[in-house]
């Protein structure tokens, strides 16, 4: 049994509980024991990435401190994330001490009332990285081969940028394609697989999201895909919501849903009209 500490993140807990459930079943089938970090905080998401405001990094840093303590008890040093945003933020926070010692000192000084400053040692991984390392075992789990399905892997930004936290080649990633191949599907290459969907502009300037998402989906259709699979909850939301092409027939699914279908956890037939339970 391999033990992983798990950081769910707010989106997964609030709006994507099905994805969490399926991911946990998948991990347990792969032989992993997954333990949620006993006390975790919002990673800070978008603002901690884009703003030069150290207080925004406090949540991620606090979480790492708590996880670090718990990791010693559980004899594991790996924190698993399902959400690319959480992955990106935690990964960058975990390298703060090395990459930005000045910022590290300030954040640690502020936090020392509450927690012992995080001083390294944890490895932050995203589910896609884990799956790429487990391709052989994943293959053994496949019950319904996705043979004949032409699936476009859409990565979004957060798993690939900036370069020093990328899980794969940021220009031409192939991790998800490898997973899809193992499931029996036919991965479709398309030029917009790392193009930004518009992310949090969905809140204020939806036109940007509509423009970008439409471009991405149109490109996937032109490449001959019938399904787009993405590991990111926000990309999923944006692509599903803002492109008229989704109405026209192409399905945008969470990568975990596609895998769940292939290994017999749940069927994606029901998910064609997948709605996000946001309210």
């Amino acid at each position, binding site marked *: 049994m391999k033990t992983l500490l798990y950081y*769910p*993140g*707010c989106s997964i*807990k*609030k*709006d994507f509980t099905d994805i969490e459930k399926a991911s946990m079943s998948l991990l347990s089938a792969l032989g992993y024991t997954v333990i949620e970090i006993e*006390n975790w*905080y*919002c990673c*800070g998401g978008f*603002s*901690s990435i884009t703003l030069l405001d150290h*207080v*925004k990094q*406090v*949540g991620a840093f*606090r979480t790492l401190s708590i996880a670090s303590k718990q990791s010693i008890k559980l004899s594991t040093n790996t924190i698993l994330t399902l959400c690319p945003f959480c992955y990106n933020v935690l990964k960058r926070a975990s390298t703060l001490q090395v990459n930005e010692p000045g910022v590290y000192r300030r954040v640690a000084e*502020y936090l020392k*009332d*509450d927690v012992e400053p995080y001083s390294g040692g944890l490895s932050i991984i995203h589910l896609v990285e884990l799956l790429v390392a487990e391709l052989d075992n994943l293959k053994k789990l496949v019950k319904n081969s996705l043979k004949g399905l032409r699936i476009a892997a859409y990565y979004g930004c957060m798993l690939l940028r900036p370069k020093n936290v990328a899980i794969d080649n940021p220009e031409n990633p192939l991790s998800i394609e490898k997973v899809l191949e193992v499931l029996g599907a036919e991965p479709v290459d398309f030029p917009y697989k790392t193009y930004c969907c518009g992310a949090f502009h969905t809140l204020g300037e939806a036109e940007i999201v509509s423009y970008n998402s439409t471009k991405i989906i149109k490109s996937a259709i032109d490449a001959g895909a019938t399904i787009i699979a993405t590991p990111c909850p926000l990309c999923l939301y944006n692509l599903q919501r803002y492109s008229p092409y989704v109405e026209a027939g192409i399905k945008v699914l969470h990568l975990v849903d596609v895998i769940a279908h292939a290994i017999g956890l749940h069927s994606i037939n029901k998910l064609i009209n997948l709605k996000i339970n*946001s*309210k």
Partner: protein
Amino acid sequence: MSSSHEGRFVTIYFNDEAFKVPEGLTVMKALEYAGIRFTHGSGCRGGFCGACPILYRLPGDYKFRVGLACQTAVVDNMRISLIPYVPVVPPKIKRSDVKPSPGYVIALFPELTRCVSCNACSKACPQGLSPMDAVQAILRGDLIKAATLTFDCISCGLCSLRCPAEIRHYLVFRVVGRIVGLFYTPKVKTIEHRIKEIKEGKYSKALETLASMKPDELRKIYDSYLKSGRLPEFLEVK
């Protein structure tokens, strides 16, 4: 000072003015001793109503400390400010719109998403709660956890005063508590039974008779109840 005060005295600063007060008093008693009259910022005097929060600092320490004036003992050279009220504007809520979902709460209080988990709120809580954990629980959709964590909130507002995200904590917690009460807490069967009886008019006659009585008649009933422990027949609804 008269000889009745044999104990020692300490100096406290209230709004930057020094007062000599006996050691061992609470801040509230000490300020009253010093001649300050509480027209606001005082309530139950038992540490429960949340009307008398104070902020103070001690010599040689940069830390902001918080407490309730009726519960905090004076310390020599402490500097005190009373915070009787922290302004919050409550949102208008229609019962029919209330949903047991984090989305609903966040729509009412959008500032919740600005939480950076700095923990200033928890440090400011005189009840020793963790408003930060409650806010974070709401953000991830766990309203029950948020309501449980804040059950002992006394609505003093100190957390909201210290919050860099300007969250209206105690209003948020009140709304969340009520949502949880409405949608998740098990209903008490005996109350349903009693409400049914009231609706069917079982107690109407007794109540009407009582309401029509004059004060001296009521006094008679009360006095005889104190003596005999029994109510007049018309009030004994079986």
